[in-house]
């Protein structure tokens, strides 16, 4: 695994005071917080900062980290020393508790399409952090009884929200074996997401959160569904909107057209005299539900190019024969 320079991540000197570390973290957190930031890779940067702050704000962890020495460079290959953690007294503060949810990929065990978020104990901190402060180290928390709930985000396509889909998640859990040693077990959970799930909707998997240590119940796993932006359709609640190009004569004279929907193409009648920007509704053609959403077809009149003499002649004929003033309202 690669060494992580937590001081460099927060942009502080090794001799920085606790207040300086806190100030540096807060300043960076405002810039990179995933809920507010538009910076590229904000989520990854924020996790790095949280991990660094988790160590440097805690006097015990910081002292242990400092003991590794100042000669390490970020990215260097690293292995914890064999006597790691010895010589420290522990106040029982939280180390990394026994559970982490990896990403929810579309297929196999991919981590694409989903991201961890939420509380510190939910987060997928680096292997470097786990090897120093995770389960099986003296810094890990003692048993607490009931396991806590975990939370993860799942990204799906709009078509999957319409039809339903499945996702495979990897849940990594350090578990104590009868001989007292800790073994990392990966639980692969295959989740069926029903048709009609909406943006931001929550899915609960009872008992799939943090396992209990000792007596008590396992926590639940909550999945927050996020629907990726679509090439054609815009989603609002359960309704979808499609911007639909039409020729001027289709808008003016009316037309029967073939319109794509999430459930396949349908025939739709454009009424005569339709205008650009006008919305037509296809009832029940949005996301399934009680009630199902609708699809709105927003017309966009597209002018034919005047790149041939014939096209120019037609426009000139309209100019000369139609008594049309598009700016009539401006002169009132």
């Amino acid at each position: 695994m690669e060494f992580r320079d937590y001081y460099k991540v927060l942009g502080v000197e090794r001799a920085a005071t606790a207040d300086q570390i806190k100030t540096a973290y807060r300043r960076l957190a405002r810039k990179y917080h995933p809920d507010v930031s538009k910076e590229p890779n904000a989520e990854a940067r924020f996790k790095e900062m949280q991990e660094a702050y988790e160590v440097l704000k805690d006097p015990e962890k910081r002292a242990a980290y400092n003991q590794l020495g100042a000669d390490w460079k970020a990215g260097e290959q690293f292995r914890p020393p064999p006597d790691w953690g010895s010589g420290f007294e522990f106040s029982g503060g939280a180390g990394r508790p026994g559970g982490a949810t990896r990403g929810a990929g579309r297929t196999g065990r991919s981590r694409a399409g989903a991201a961890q978020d939420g509380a510190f104990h939910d987060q997928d901190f680096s292997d470097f952090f786990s090897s120093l402060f995770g389960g099986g180290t003296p810094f890990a928390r003692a048993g607490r009884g009931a396991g806590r709930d975990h939370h993860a985000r799942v990204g799906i396509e709009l078509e999957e929200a319409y039809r339903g889909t499945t996702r495979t998640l990897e849940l990594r859990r350090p578990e104590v074996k009868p001989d007292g040693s800790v073994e990392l077990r990966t639980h692969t959970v295959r989740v069926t997401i029903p048709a009609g799930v909406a943006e931001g909707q929550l899915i609960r998997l009872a008992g799939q959160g943090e396992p209990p240590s000792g007596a008590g119940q396992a926590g639940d796993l909550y999945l927050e569904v996020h629907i990726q932006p679509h090439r054609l359709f815009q989603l609002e609640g359960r309704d979808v909107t499609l911007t639909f190009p039409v020729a001027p004569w289709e808008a003016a004279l009316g037309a029967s057209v073939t319109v794509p929907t999430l459930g396949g193409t349908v025939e739709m009648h454009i009424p005569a005299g339709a205008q650009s920007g006008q919305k037509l509704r296809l009832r029940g053609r949005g996301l399934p539900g009680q009630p199902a959403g609708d699809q709105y077809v927003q017309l966009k009149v597209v002018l034919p190019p005047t790149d041939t003499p014939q096209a120019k002649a037609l426009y000139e004929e309209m100019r000369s024969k139609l008594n049309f003033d598009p700016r009539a309202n401006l002169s009132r």
Partner: protein
Amino acid sequence: MVRVTHRFEAHVLGESDWIAATEICQLCRLDLGAVMELAELGVVAPREIPPGQWQIPATALPRLRVVGRLMQDLGVNVSGAALALELLEAQRELERRIRSLERLASDH
């Protein structure tokens, strides 16, 4: 490394699902006082069933988690986090409208 595979049917939480306020607090890293203050600010509408035990609609969970994250990670108070939440939601709605208008205005 040991691998164990389970298969689950998801329970999608909808408008008819309610979660105990104590569980919400743990999920969102908020204390009960903060949740009640958020109720006073109109961010969430809890119900008291039975008397003395508060429940929160499950659909409010994503918003409350944002509030919890903003409070914990940025050090803002309840009012500040609630204000930030509403501004972020307004910003997202405006961005959505802009994208919609851009689609209408752009060349096809």
